[in-house]
């Protein structure tokens, strides 16, 4: 009798112990909201004006960037996208330089329209046009035409690029017994690709003042046997940096896993 009662007691204690323990770790998915970098609440509309573009002649980086950003903003932001012909800032730049020099009272060497590079090949060439964004009168005037929207502009440099070096590849082999094995081998080769370096400038269309600007840089390299059109590479690289661009204007959610503990 005593033994039976003791066994009952032991089992009750065991049940209580199991109930008390249970799993101590719970893997749980979470979504972390990230606030936009820019307060866009004063604006209802956004105007992607155009970009100073240079580098590869195979892609019209101004036109493609305007199209892509507008389409992304249409679907992924609460701002209404203004449909207007993209402005060629390269054409507008000399007149703007003259206006700025006149406003300064004397012809400034850095704003000499003749000194602006006709063809943009590298970062130094494109940086010569940076003065365009520090000219509030120009942007304010443009903003007034569209009732003071948020203006998105900047520079886009899309350049061909090649690099020589060791590339790791996996070589598959089959031995005498038919067993397959994969071995990493290093090969010295020249690979070609592109670098995309956009600078996005956000301007308050009501005042013409720069609110925020951000530079991104992405690159891609392909093996010599790969024939990749320049436009495909452009979109591949833009795909990588679009979340960063959108994160400036609208909140994003990042999915992840966390461990909850007991």
């Amino acid at each position: 009798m005593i033994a039976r009662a003791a066994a009952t007691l032991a089992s009750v204690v065991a049940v209580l112990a199991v109930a008390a323990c249970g799993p101590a770790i719970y893997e749980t998915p979470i979504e972390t909201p990230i606030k936009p970098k820019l307060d866009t609440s004063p604006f209802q509309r956004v105007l992607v004006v155009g970009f100073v573009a240079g580098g590869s002649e195979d892609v019209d980086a101004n036109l493609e960037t305007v199209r892509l950003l507008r389409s992304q903003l249409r679907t992924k932001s609460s701002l209404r996208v203004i449909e207007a012909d993209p402005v060629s800032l390269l054409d507008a730049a000399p007149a703007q330089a003259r206006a700025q020099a006149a406003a300064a009272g004397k012809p400034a060497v850095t704003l000499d329209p003749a000194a602006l590079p006709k063809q943009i090949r590298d970062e130094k060439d494109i940086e010569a046009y940076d003065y365009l964004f520090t000219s509030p009168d120009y942007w304010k005037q443009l903003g007034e035409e569209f009732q003071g929207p948020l203006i998105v502009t900047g520079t886009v440099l899309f350049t061909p690029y090649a690099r020589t070096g060791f590339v790791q590849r996996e070589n598959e082999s089959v031995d005498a017994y038919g067993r397959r094995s994969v071995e990493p081998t290093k090969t010295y080769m020249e690979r070609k690709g592109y670098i995309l370096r956009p600078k996005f400038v956000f301007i308050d269309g009501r005042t013409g003042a720069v609110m925020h600007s951000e530079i991104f840089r992405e690159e891609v390299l392909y093996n010599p046997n790969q024939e990749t059109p320049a436009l495909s590479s452009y979109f591949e690289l833009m795909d990588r940096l679009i979340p960063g661009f959108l994160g400036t204007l609208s909140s994003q959610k990042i999915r992840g896993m966390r461990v909850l503990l007991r």
Partner: protein
Amino acid sequence: MRKILSSAVLALAISATLGAAGNPRSDAKAQVKFGIDLAQKGLWRDALFFWEKAVEIDPTYAAAFNNLAVAYEHEGLFEKARKAYDTALALAPKNESIRQNYEFFKEINDRASRRNPR
């Protein structure tokens, strides 16, 4: 004899329950467990309430601070999340789960606070 043993089992169960009610860690554990159930149903704000209560009851309970940090992350309250993770790690520096959560959090926090110069 049977009667005596039955009374002993009953007494044990009652004392366990009473002990749990009087022990801050047991009270906090109950809050934490309830919070986990809610979080797993997607009710993060309610879970947050219970985990805040848990750390109030037992400020030495690392798991509660960890869960609280995760809930703050979920609500986008990064500064509060960082403080809660710091406390959790100070209480349990060798806990790998807390450390791993903190590493993921830091990555997102850096991304959120990153600003390129004009």
